[in-house]
């Protein structure tokens, strides 16, 4: 597909950057927050921050679902694995630190922990090994939750249950919008979560909080254009909700996915690593699907864990209050090879993304 190259056109990017500089010259300082690990990857990988004027800052919010899973939920998965249950999880979940150990540590000690590409792989494993109990550790935002919902509606094998850790992104954005010390001037909303939920859940950010909000795609020009659109709104003094990613995101979102999610999950308050409890931000299995709830099936419930080890600043990194290289552990006690904090684990974690691009400088 030629789209990739067209949305990476360096000439067009330079012209947009020029427009951004002109618009920004009439503003004092502008702080724009995105809430998606893939956006951070694009911004860092293509060096987009270097194209922005000094008074325009793009910060990374809690956009990495792996980073915000609290230690207590990792502890539940690890405890089950240590008890002899086979735990299936996505690749970037296996190294997330729990209070004391990660699933990878448990696997190294002999527990049955399996990395899967998709929940469908966990179903196949459970079908093939019907004498063994399996748990799928379901982590992810709105982009991922529908796949869990599909499989639960399809009635998976009885030897498979789910630790549902899915979180919803708009409630976290609401928390950021209300943080007085963050003083945000714009949101870049996540394109793929928005493909599912549509535009409506973001309406309150411009309407109630006066924050321009643009749903954006993941190519460099998508990001630059969303910054341009936010600055344009600021200059006009008319904050509104706009969709830059029209080739994927529809106003109403994916209504089939929404129906499936509503059918399978209730929305409950949820603890986010580094952020505390956010009202109505987590999905939990509805009553009629509780036979698939690993908490009930395996009698496991851990309420409290140690989310940030001593010195770790993940709680400040996930809300963009500090940059990764302002954490005393960054690339010292906390590296991609041996992560201390959750933000250094996933390819979508802000520290992990920064580590890739700042490695040589830190080593020099």
């Amino acid at each position, binding site marked *: 597909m030629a*789209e990739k190259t067209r949305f990476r056109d360096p000439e067009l990017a330079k012209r947009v950057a020029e427009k951004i500089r002109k618009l920004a010259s009439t503003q004092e300082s502008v702080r724009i927050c995105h809430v998606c690990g893939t956006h951070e990857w694009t911004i860092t990988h293509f060096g987009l921050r270097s194209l922005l004027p000094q008074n325009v800052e793009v910060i990374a919010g809690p956009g990495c679902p792996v980073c915000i899973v609290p230690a207590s939920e990792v502890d539940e998965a690890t405890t089950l694995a240590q008890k002899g249950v086979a735990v299936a999880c996505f690749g970037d979940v296996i190294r997330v630190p729990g209070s004391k150990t990660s699933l990878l540590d448990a696997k190294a000690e002999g527990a049955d922990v399996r990395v899967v590409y998709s929940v469908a792989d966990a179903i196949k494993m459970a079908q093939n090994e019907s004498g063994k109990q399996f748990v799928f550790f379901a982590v992810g935002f709105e*982009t991922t939750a529908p796949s869990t919902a*599909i499989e639960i509606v399809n009635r998976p094998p009885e030897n498979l249950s789910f630790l549902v850790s899915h979180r919803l992104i708009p409630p976290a954005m609401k928390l950021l919008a209300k943080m007085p010390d963050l003083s945000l001037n714009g949101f870049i909303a996540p394109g*793929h979560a928005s493909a599912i939920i549509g535009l409506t859940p973001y309406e309150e950010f411009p309407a109630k909080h006066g924050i321009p909000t643009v749903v954006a795609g993941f190519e460099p020009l998508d990001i630059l254009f969303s910054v341009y659109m936010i600055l344009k709104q600021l200059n006009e003094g008319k904050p509104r909700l706009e969709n830059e990613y029209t080739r994927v995101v529809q106003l109403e979102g994916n209504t089939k996915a929404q129906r499936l999610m509503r059918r399978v999950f209730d929305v409950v308050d949820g603890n986010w690593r580094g952020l505390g409890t956010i009202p109505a931000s987590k999905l939990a299995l509805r009553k009629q699907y509780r036979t698939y709830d690993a908490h009930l099936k395996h009698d496991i419930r851990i309420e409290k864990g140690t989310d940030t080890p001593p010195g770790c600043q993940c709680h400040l990194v996930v809300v963009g209050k500090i940059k990764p290289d302002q954490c005393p552990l960054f690339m010292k006690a906390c590296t991609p090879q041996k992560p201390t904090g959750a933000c250094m684990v996933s390819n979508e974690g802000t520290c992990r993304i920064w580590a890739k691009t700042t490695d040589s400088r830190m080593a020099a």
Partner: protein
Amino acid sequence: MCLAIPGKVISVEQDKANVDFGEGVLREVNVTLVNAHVGDYVLVHAGYAIEVLDEKEALETLNLWNEILQTENRQQ
């Protein structure tokens, strides 16, 4: 983790499609959530298509960007 990759639908059978991600990578993808036809580009996340890419909109976005930049240049 919300990374989603576009691929071209080669065949569809009920809720499963064979999708070409380029460079010889073919994978079975669950298409329950979308109305995908052979030849469509779907956006795939963790084995599930979450949306069909709208090529017409993609072109329109690029045209619109060029238009905005040109209009503003003319205004200056």
